[in-house]
């Protein structure tokens, strides 16, 4: 595809479902997820990449979807916050830990916090507080003062270590 195109056909598997979509150059992944696919759990926040409320997973790595350009992802495996719960509709262990520890108040930051915790715990099953803080650094929360978020990540770590 060497030609200049004003509309780009992308093939994405989003939360396990294959989509073929025409996207416009310049458009963010966040816009396509929210507007075309109606996945509004991906929140729009700052649009500068600072707050993390639009976080999703692209090909297994977390990313801020407001600053990922849709047309530069011709084929991708995308997971949004809607894709975290189990097939039975139950919360995943990390979500459950955030629920139990009152990790969220308003919940606007949930995509950033949950995906950051998931990526951290996939690499570091028993993180220190410093590792938790640095893993959450790309996501802002204006409600909790971060203490309950730390507790939630610790609880999630325990839960994941205990589930085989």
């Amino acid at each position, binding site marked *: 595809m060497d030609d200049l195109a004003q509309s780009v056909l992308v093939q994405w598997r989003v939360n396990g479902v294959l989509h073929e979509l025409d996207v416009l150059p*310049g458009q963010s992944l966040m816009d396509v997820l929210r507007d075309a696919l109606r996945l509004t759990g991906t929140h729009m926040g700052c649009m500068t*990449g600072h707050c993390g409320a639009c976080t999703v997973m692209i090909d297994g*790595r977390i990313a801020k979807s407001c*600053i*990922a*350009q849709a047309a530069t992802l011709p084929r991708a495996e995308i997971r949004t916050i809607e894709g975290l719960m189990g097939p039975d509709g139950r919360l995943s262990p990390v979500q459950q830990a955030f629920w139990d520890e009152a990790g969220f108040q308003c919940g606007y930051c949930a995509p950033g916090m949950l995906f950051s915790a998931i990526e951290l715990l996939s690499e570091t099953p028993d993180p220190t507080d410093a590792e938790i803080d640095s893993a959450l650094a790309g996501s802002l929360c204006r409600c909790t003062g971060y203490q309950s978020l730390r507790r939630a990540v610790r609880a999630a770590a325990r839960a994941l270590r205990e589930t085989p």
Partner: protein
Amino acid sequence: MSLYPSLARPRTLADAAALLASLSSGGVVIAGGQELMPSINAGVLAPEVYVDIGGLAELRGIAETPEGLLAIGALTVHRELQTHPLVTAKLPLLGHAATRAGGGRQVHNRGTIGGNLVAQHPLYDLAPSLLALEAEVEWVKGSETVRQPLAAMLADSRHGLGSEAILARVLVVPMAEGLGFAYEKLKASGGAYGSANAAALVKLTNGRVAAVRLVVGAVAERLLDASAAAAALLVGRPFDAAAGAALAHAVSALVTAPLSDAQGPGPWRQAMAGVVARRAVAAAVQRAGRA
């Protein structure tokens, strides 16, 4: 001029360079988009043509060259710099600096070394270390391939590579065993950027400084290579408190036009340039002493 932007995703570096050369009004290269997209979202940047280089395999990977250099592809993201075994073993200063960049894991997973360097942003975290390491860059423009010191690219008055060149790789001599290193980032806020940054490399012989490289960032429009000033003060002596104070004083004196922005006012930035320089050299000396 078209109302809607267009995008091309070339498959080879040669195709991408040829395409850029053929666009009379210029195309905008996009890699991870972490620097471009905030401006596009805000409407302050509205490119007509994007050239997406994400599909260029030639710009990926980290490898050793036959000359013994580490070649880092321009599409290498911060995360790979933090974790790649070759970087950890041979360029720990760069790996460490990459951990200090802001934006969090999400940005580290997508932001590339190429985008970071080409942006030439005075607050960014990779250039000070790479300049201290005397890195070279290789870029392609039309059918021409140019290899030059990073210092020359950063000093170019055209500010960057222009709109036709593609940065392909960064080439770095591996750090010698036992070389002390440190990257100090002084942050005045919870935000991403430092108010003064310093990268230092120190070689110690019998407890005395034998060689030093020192680059200070985030205090002026351009990076400050203070290596000569540092060497004049430090080489041949042990690094003690008096040497540290003299170094801080000398480095601050080199900052003639300090930045004054959200990261802090100019006079303070000038003072902090000396402080981070002293801290970075002290930490590098300690590491060298332990080796």
